[in-house]
């Protein structure tokens, strides 16, 4: 399984120079995580594919503006997040869910790998993820899919680190509750 520490080996410098093989590597590395993230936010296959496509096209056009190679992943997810916001605005739905949550002390900064799920819990997990309010869902997905740090998630979603902490706390608490209920 690919993890974030591999980012340092990604050929971002070559991609900036226009190397198509480097772009192929980057596309293969990020296409599915990016699609999963976008799909879980917009819940529409065609719209998700369009957003992934637009994200990569934007990335190709603007990679020269990227200052730090190691931030390529969060930069790419940031573009996709902005596209999702545009999609929400277009659809003008779920707007009530996108209200800011009050900051609350965070539960614990555990890694996404700490949480392991049994096969029968997979469907429940996906259902729960889809039921979470959008801000929490977004933070949780970024945490799970790419193991982004709180600062990176805050940058991608354009919020404060405290807000991200709070959202993750709520999302994880809901998830744990579900798992406990199931395991009893």
């Amino acid at each position, binding site marked *: *399984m690919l993890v974030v520490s591999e980012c340092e080996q990604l050929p971002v410098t070559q991609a900036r120079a*226009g190397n*198509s093989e480097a*772009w*192929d590597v980057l*596309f293969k590395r990020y*296409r*599915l*995580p990016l*699609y*999963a993230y976008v*799909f*879980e936010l917009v819940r529409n*296959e065609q719209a998700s*594919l369009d957003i*992934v*496509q637009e994200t*990569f*096209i934007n990335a*190709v*056009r603007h990679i020269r503006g990227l200052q730090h190679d190691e931030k390529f992943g969060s930069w790419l997810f940031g573009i996709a997040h902005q596209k999702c916001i545009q999609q929400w605005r277009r659809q003008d739905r779920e707007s009530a869910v996108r209200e800011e949550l009050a900051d609350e002390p965070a539960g614990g900064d555990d890694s*996404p*790998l700490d*949480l*392991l*799920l*049994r*096969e029968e819990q*997979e469907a429940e*997990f*996906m259902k729960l*993820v889809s039921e979470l309010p959008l801000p929490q869902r977004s933070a949780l*997905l970024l945490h*799970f*899919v790419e*193991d982004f740090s709180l600062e990176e998630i805050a940058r991608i979603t354009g919020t404060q680190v405290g807000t991200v902490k709070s959202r993750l706390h709520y999302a994880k608490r809901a998830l744990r509750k579900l798992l406990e209920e199931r395991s009893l």
Partner: protein
Amino acid sequence: MKTPREILLKQHQAVDPKLDRMWTETIAPELLSWRATLRRGRRNVTDARERISMANVLWRELIWPCRRVWAGVACAWLLIIGLNMASFERTSRVASKTEPRSGEDIRAFIEQRRLLAQLTGWLPEPANTRKPNPPGPRSDRMARISAA
């Protein structure tokens, strides 16, 4: 046991062929056109750099070593241009101020000249006062031509 990441990615694996098609149909051609733009941009940058470096060489080799001489020449030129402009302004002002001479002035001038000529005994021959010979009769002209 699986991690949430594994579950999420597994859930969406079916879309992989569509993503592959996206690469070949849209992103790869976009990348090609972007590379072409990049190359054009690089060429323009190189041209601009060459121009700048030529100007740099000119400055370093030609102007900077004898900067005092160039400065002196420039000052001299500025002075010349300034003086020229000032004199042009003055003459144009004088010319615009002078009025056309009246007939009385001209008559007085001719009178003075006549008196001077009488006193000195020298009478300047008026320029072009002699009238050109009137053409002779046509028969004479014909005789001259036949003789030639």
